[in-house]
């Protein structure tokens, strides 16, 4: 379970967002510059909110009135970036194991072999990111995020840099991750079609405000 209620501002931009996510996936749509990435950065702990709370399960990660702020490295909210952000000096295997090695062994839920099978990246593990295609890179990035056994999976336009054919290849993997791992997912994209394919519920981000989507997801299936 993830619940958040956050306020943040920078310059003239102000963000205000709250929601409760039990399990499954929420999709967040909205135009670029509406604050989608900022919301994910707030949840991941990369930036501090002006005011608000983030609660995961029964653990309070952020509570500005009580002065609680858990840094990113202790949240275990994995974030998958638009362009993967794989570490160029490590092989795919080194990338996959980066978070795994830093996770308390008792807390590890997945292991390399399972994730390699799940994402069908067996043939890639010894390669460097520069030797991977865009779609392969995103699968490794997804695997790297899963291998740190996250409490929440935050996906920031993970398919935006891929062409349509590759998107069609990766979407089934995302669906498989959602169904087989049960990790709550927050999926951010400007593409409605992607969001509808994955998400159980859709929210809309518009000029820093997170609102229920006017069109119901079921109507578009």
């Amino acid at each position, binding site marked *: 379970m993830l619940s958040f209620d956050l306020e943040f501002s920078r310059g003239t931009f102000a963000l205000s967002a709250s929601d409760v996510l039990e399990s499954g996936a929420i999709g967040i749509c909205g135009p670029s510059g509406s604050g989608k990435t900022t919301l994910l950065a707030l949840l991941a702990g990369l930036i501090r909110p002006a005011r608000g709370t983030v609660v995961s399960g029964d653990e309070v990660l952020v509570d500005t009135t009580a002065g609680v702020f858990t*840094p990113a*490295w202790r949240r275990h909210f994995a974030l998958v970036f638009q362009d993967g*952000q794989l570490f160029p*000096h490590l092989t795919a295997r080194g990338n996959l194991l*980066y978070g795994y090695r830093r996770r308390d062994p008792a807390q590890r839920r997945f292991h390399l072999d399972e994730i390699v099978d799940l994402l069908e990246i067996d043939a890639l593990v010894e390669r460097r990111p*520069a030797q991977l295609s865009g779609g392969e890179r995103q699968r490794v990035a997804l695997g790297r995020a899963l291998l740190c056994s996250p409490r929440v999976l935050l996906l920031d336009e993970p398919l935006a840099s891929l062409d349509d054919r590759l998107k069609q290849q990766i979407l089934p993997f995302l669906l498989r991750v959602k169904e087989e791992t049960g990790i709550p997912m927050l999926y951010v994209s400007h593409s409605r079609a992607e969001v509808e394919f994955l998400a159980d519920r859709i929210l809309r981000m518009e000029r820093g405000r997170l609102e229920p989507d006017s069109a119901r997801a079921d109507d578009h299936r």
Partner: protein
Amino acid sequence: MNADEWQALQLSARVALWATVACIPAGVLVAWLLARRDFPGKFVLEILVQLPMVLPPVVPGYLLLMLLGTQGPVGRWLDQSFGIVLAFTWQGAVLASAIMAFPLLVQPIRVAFRLVDARLEQAATTLGATRFDAFRSVTLPLALPGLIAGAVLCFSRSLGEFGATMAFVGNIPGETRTLPLAIYTYMNVPGGEGATLRLALVSVALASAALVASHWLTRVAERRLGYRDQQTNRA
């Protein structure tokens, strides 16, 4: 080469090596602060770091002597409290070289840090790495070619240090007479032409070797870091 010439060469190598080793930790820290942090006084730090590069070298040497000479406030304290004397010793030559070479070390490392995408560090922290761990495991390895380039520049600059060394620690054979000081000395001695030429050629050879080593190390580092994989086949 005669014994005195060898002595000058060995002393220069020792001074340059220690100056480089001493500079690296501070250089990495300062380069990181300048590349990644905003803080009050950043501009002042930037000026201070670059100052030795643009000042006449004899000025930092003179200031070191005023401060750290046996009659200087810090020098007297060091001598009385710890028995450490820097003026007119080879350790003092290391300090003078280190200060003069520091800007040349910092600049390439700073550029290398700036070229590392800060989002890679963010990715590392979301994967459970503390900031220091992210720096150690992501930023520093990716900036390694810059660190190598900086270290070689620092070493070469230290080998050639003349003005600050002369002002702070003098020109004492076997203690502070490094290669450039020896060359200068032989130039002013009747019959020193042969020694001058030999040492000048040695300097050229050393400097060339340092540059070749730097290119080779950078290539190795870049290959290890995956910067050169684009050229290999994609399979």
